[in-house]
């Protein structure tokens, strides 16, 4: 009796340390695997960054994976303001601003209109509201290649062909499906009694939207803005189809820099240009990413 009672605590302790050890091993194994994945995903970025900081000479002679022996920002300067896109050699700068001029109004407009649409569809039910919502959803799944020709014709008729307002228009129209979906799904979780109470309080359609719905919408606005900004900034198809010299967005310019060079391929300039083109979306994610995750789950968690 005494023996068993004496030995049992000792036994359990040794078992406890064993369990702890395997727990620690599992944890480190997990970190290792995650670390490897992270490395794998970061590899291209690493190559881009290092290449963009090397001179052409070094790229030719050195290894792809090697760190630059001599850091130089010449390639970045060239990409920004000197690289040739076809016959002009002004770098990415003018096109970067084109993209900014397209993306900011288009994101703002499509988000605002999506919010209004979602508000109406979720809280001001009218005959055929569900049908219209389904059609807008359908719009999310139309491949953009299908609409290129009709849209070109419409832009022509509106006198917006090849202009920045034309591109804004296109992006707003094709963004509405998603923005409406986002806001509608968020707003249906807001109880209808809130609208009723506000109506009894005397608030108008727009007043209710402004004073009650918009203040509740920050998470979904962040989601929509990130989504729309990424889509519009990264868009190539509309940019290349509906622009002309001088109104092209940065994605088109990047393509021209990479594909229109003759002779020696300036890999460092190409890499720097690609990073510049990608920086704004990266920036938006870093700044608002926290809200992005929160907003995506907000709709489903709220009762």
């Amino acid at each position, binding site marked *: 009796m005494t023996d068993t009672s004496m030995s049992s605590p000792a036994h359990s302790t040794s078992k406890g340390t064993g369990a702890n050890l395997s727990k620690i091993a599992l944890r480190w194994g997990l970190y290792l695997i995650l670390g490897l994945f992270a490395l794998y995903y970061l590899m291209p970025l690493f190559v881009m960054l290092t290449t963009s900081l090397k001179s052409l000479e070094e790229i030719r002679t050195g290894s792809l994976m090697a760190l630059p022996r001599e850091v130089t920002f010449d390639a970045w300067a060239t990409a920004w303001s000197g690289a040739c896109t076809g016959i002009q050699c002004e770098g990415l700068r003018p096109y970067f601003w084109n993209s900014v001029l397209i993306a900011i109004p288009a994101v703002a407009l499509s988000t605002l209109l999506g919010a209004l649409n979602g508000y109406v569809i979720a809280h001001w039910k009218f005959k055929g509201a569900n049908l219209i919502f389904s059609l807008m959803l359908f719009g999310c799944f139309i491949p953009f290649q299908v609409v290129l020709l009709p849209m070109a014709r419409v832009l022509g008729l509106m006198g917006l062909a090849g202009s920045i307002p034309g591109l804004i228009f296109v992006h707003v129209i094709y963004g509405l499906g998603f923005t409406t979906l986002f806001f509608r799904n968020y707003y249906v979780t807001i109880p209808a009694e809130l609208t009723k109470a506000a109506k*009894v309080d005397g608030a108008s359609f727009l*007043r209710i939207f402004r004073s009650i719905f918009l*203040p509740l919408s920050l998470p979904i606005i962040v989601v929509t803005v990130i989504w729309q900004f990424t889509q519009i900034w990264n868009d190539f198809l509309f940019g290349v189809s509906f622009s002309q010299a001088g109104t092209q967005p940065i994605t088109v310019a990047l393509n021209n820099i990479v594909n229109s060079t003759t002779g020696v391929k300036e890999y460092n300039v190409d890499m720097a240009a690609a990073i510049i083109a990608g920086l704004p979306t990266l920036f938006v994610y870093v700044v608002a990413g926290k809200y992005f995750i929160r907003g995506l789950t907000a709709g489903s968690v709220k009762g």
Partner: protein
Amino acid sequence: MAPILDIKNLYKSYGPVEILKDINVSIEPGDFLVLVGPSGCGKSTLLNCIAGLEPITGGTLSIGGNDMTHVSPKDRDIAMVFQSYALYPTMSVAKNITFGMKVRGEDAATQEAKLKEVAAQLQIEQLLNRRPGQLSGGQRQRVAMGRALVRDPKLFLFDEPLSNLDAKLRVEMRSEIKKLHQTLGASMVYVTHDQIEAMTLATKIVVMKGGVIQQIGTPAEIYNTPANLFVADFMGSPAMNLIPAKTRKAGADTVLDIARADGASMQLRDHRALDLPADVLVGLRPEDIAESGFRAGADVQEAECLVDMVEPAGADTYVTSYLGGKQVTARLHAETSAQAGQPLSLAFDLGKVSYFSPSTGERLN
């Protein structure tokens, strides 16, 4: 005085589905009208129609003598308290209460004064800077009431305001609403599915079922002389006993012949010459059946019944027996000597009896 709320021939349908059929209700200033009925009876829809939140299909509706049939909610001079309270989540309590005044463009001084007055009345002064999310259920309820009170409307509308509270708080808030009604003397329309709430609060009750008004009356009228079987069964807890009986005339009396569990039928005499069909349902409230010797009067009839079950409930003891093939409940005093399986002499107070037709369900006397 002109009725404060007057509803005439109101119909409401969603497509082919009729939700409300031929509703006629009117209340005087200071009335507390309770719309009561099981879920799906259309009581909340009716309230929404009164508020103007749902358009009506037919009929007219006037508030304070003005036709409001097609007027938008904000111009009806009403205030409404919702089941979920519907507090604006991003606004502080103070802003919630003053939102309506702000929308209507009242000046800041008036808003401030009214807010103070209402906050003091409802004892929510210390909550004014909080958000609704930081309040308990009872506190939210008070804020929702404050939002209605601050308007000082012609008509208050309540849509099941207590059903989200726990039992104890519900009773507390119920008496507070009653007190509020007494001190304000305001006209109120209140929707509930809880018949006790209806009885305790109302000066006038409307019992509804399937979109049709079953009975309108004071709580006493509804309780004592229900218009049909539905009302008799719905109002009161435990429900009214409905005992199948055969009737015959015996001189100036009406004799009720009720089957008993042990075979031999029981006879009760109503000393009134009533023109009743041969088969009736005898409606008697549990409290109108007492132990022999505890109820006296010209209309009290005694009979021996076999006790089936004894349920002590503290203040009273409920005793059940089988009469006419139905379980009948009697509300006896707490110290009754009734025992299950034993016969007991019960006193039936036929002065309070209701007769119903088994076929139509309508009241016969």
